[in-house]
């Protein structure tokens, strides 16, 4: 079995109102020196596939077709 972690983040230049609100909250809590905060998503996916290359290709297809909206988001696939 292969375990993978997929990280989805907003592309540069795409406004992230939620990240902005978190950034302000952190500053308000007294954490000094907080720069930009960008919010993203993490998916931990288990695959029965044993071939790493095949698994990676499948995971990328999952990202392109569902897990990420590539109009506004980038993704990274990391196989454990």
């Amino acid at each position, binding site marked *: 079995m292969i375990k993978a972690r997929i990280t989805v983040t907003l592309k540069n230049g*795409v*406004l992230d*109102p*939620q990240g902005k*609100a978190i950034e302000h909250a952190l500053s308000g809590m007294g954490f000094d020196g907080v720069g930009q905060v960008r919010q993203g998503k993490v998916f931990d996916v288990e695959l029965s596939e044993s071939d790493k290359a095949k698994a990676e290709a499948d995971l990328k297809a999952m990202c392109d*077709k*569902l*897990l990420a*909206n590539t*109009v*506004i988001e980038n993704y990274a696939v990391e196989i454990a």
Partner: protein
Amino acid sequence: MKSAVVLLPGLNRDRDMIAALTKISGTPPVTVWQTDTEIPDVDLITIPGGFSFGDYLRCGAIAARMPVMRAVAEQAAKGVMVIGVCNGFQILVEAGLLPGALMRNTSLKFVCRQVKLQIANANTMFTRRYQPGQIIRSPVAHHDGNYFADAETLRRLEGEGQVVFRYAEGTNPNGSINDIAGIINGQGNVLGLMPHPENLIEAAHGGSDGRALFESALGVAA
């Protein structure tokens, strides 16, 4: 003119859409379920508002991958009119039938109020019963209506008259780029908009500013 309403779990404006289509066209629309792979022969398909699949992952993302959306895409490619309202608009962009994306409102708040819309293009099959530049009222109710598209897509939308509705007079409720409230595809037969024209079609609603959209699409006299 025959119409259809797409039903998905979590939508909650479907009955409003069915009522509007029935009252304006005189004929109740057929309904199609998320697992249907074929849509009966109709002139107009509508995707109502709501929270399909609980807005999980991204608004409209799961709904856009349901079998019925392949059927909607096939019909759209044949020239059948499609209108997606609110969540329906989000579903259309997630399905790739319209460009861009709909993101969280810049205020981070759910907005539920009436806004003013400018008819940015009155030369479409959805707006021909309006005057160019006309200002109409329309309710909005959404959390993720902040339209975004990359610079090149935006240039194309603006250049080709694909921006159909714009929030007017500082009423932009969500921070959408260029005050965009609704767009059409390149062929001009697929419309997506965040406002709810189906909720302003008769005196009991406090006005009928949204009625001309359906009259335009359904080809019925005002």
